[in-house]
């Protein structure tokens, strides 16, 4: 069995490099040679960084999609709350929700929730019914802006604008928006937001 049985947490119990089992003269010499070899080149430290569970390719389904050995940089995403205040990549605040997402949902033609800016500020007014469409719209605009920032190479976000638009479109046409809203919320919190609030795109 491994001679490191006592090797548990804490420095006190750690097997130290010098307390391996007694050796013969020649194996001790061999060991010194081995150690000397280690310092001939620059130190190499292999690191597995702590990552969010999803980080492999920054998507909800990334986990079982194949290449497990690809770690990549940490995932990044900004919340809709951030996007309410920050400058926007690619999209103008006055663009219409239904036009951008290719939908014709009646809710997004109402007063004060037609444009992207109105939808992302939608919580400023009381919900008109179950609040789910409001939440959905809020997350959808946030996700779109994350994808737009990613397309400019500024955010390691796992979805393209096309994918977000398709998700939103499908959700509204199947009526599944409550479920998809939860997914969008997860996607929008899938990582650290690297921008200061005064970022320019």
């Amino acid at each position, binding site marked *: 069995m491994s001679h490191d049985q006592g090797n548990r947490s804490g420095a006190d119990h750690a097997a130290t490099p010098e307390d391996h089992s007694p050796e013969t003269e020649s194996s001790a010499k061999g060991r010194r040679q081995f150690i000397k070899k280690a310092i001939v080149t620059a130190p190499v430290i292999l690191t*597995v960084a702590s*990552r*969010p*569970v999803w980080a492999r390719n920054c998507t909800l389904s990334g986990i079982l999609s194949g290449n497990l*050995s690809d770690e990549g940089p940490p995932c990044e995403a900004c919340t809709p709350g951030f996007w309410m205040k920050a400058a926007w990549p690619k999209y103008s605040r006055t663009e219409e929700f239904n036009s951008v997402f290719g939908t014709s949902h009646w809710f997004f033609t109402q007063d004060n929730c037609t444009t992207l800016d109105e939808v992302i500020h939608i919580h400023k007014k009381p919900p008109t019914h179950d609040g789910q469409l409001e939440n959905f719209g809020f997350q959808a605009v946030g996700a779109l802006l994350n994808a737009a920032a990613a397309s400019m190479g500024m955010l390691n976000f796992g979805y393209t604008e096309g994918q977000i638009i398709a998700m939103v479109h499908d959700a509204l046409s199947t009526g*599944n928006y409550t479920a998809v809203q*939860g997914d969008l919320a997860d996607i929008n919190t*899938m990582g650290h937001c690297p921008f200061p609030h005064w970022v320019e795109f």
Partner: protein
Amino acid sequence: MFAFPTAHSSRFHQDSSRRRELREGPKDRSMTIQSISSLSPSELARQLRDQGLNLGIGPFVTRIQSTIPSVVRGIRLLYAGYPIEKDSTFADFHVHLAPPRGLRRWFRPQVLFFFDGHVPFKPLPLAQAYPFFEWGLNWCVAQYANQYLILHAAVIEKGGHAVIMPGPPGSGKSTLCAGLVAGGWRLLSDELALISPQDGRLTPMPRPVSLKNESIDVIRKFAPGVTIGPESADTTKGTVAHMKVPDESMARVDEHATAAWVVYARYDAGAPARLERRSKAQTLLHIVRNAFNCSLLGERGFQTAADLIDTCDCYDFTYSDLDQAVGVFDTLLDEGLLPIS
């Protein structure tokens, strides 16, 4: 470091623990167990269509609902011996496979996978509904069973010694796993190793073994007696089919196992079977990197992985001939090549 995990996983983790408390301990299998095979085909289809069916799969109860014929047929064939959990109020996972509403219900029909009411994935073509069910269920367990350290690995056992075979899809581990299981090894899982942090033991969760492309014929030839489900043409991965879990493995589903070997298997056409020791430290690093939730479990995850590698012998294994490969594994067992580091 920002606060993580996602809202989903922390919610579910709490729910899952509470539900287990309500479950009053381990399932008592001495009571009359009704299995899938005891239902008539029409009764099975009806239950799957209406309230759903609570299927006991290893330590989990999965409520499955579907009207899709290939899913119903697949469950009838490949889950024949699985127990139906009568308690209809309790399930670890709620899984529902259904066509989307609207155009894609009829035109180039698709299937959606619903998990606890959410849609985690984009739809797939309807022809892939059964593999979608299997793959989606793997995903459910991999995301939410955080009471275990979960590795992406096959797990088999014989003579009291379990072998963990890590590897991504396409490496050859699934074919080898299927061959070994057909050759008398007990199947604990073909995709997900569930390791208890408390005692380092492996919890079985045997499910149909997924086979792709040439592997399907290889296994048919190697073990003509095994049941293999219908093939689904999958445009990204090729053709997929599933091998039914042998009755012997099902009978021992509640029997936990202790890992003795970690073997990285790789198919290499024409190569003779070759087993080589590999560095334990490198293996530990690989396990930490590729476990689904080592990071999530923090210190405990690391220690569980470290203890596992400490007690196991670690190998790289290359093979091309399945007979030869199974022979090597049986020799490993007979000659008791246990760790002597």
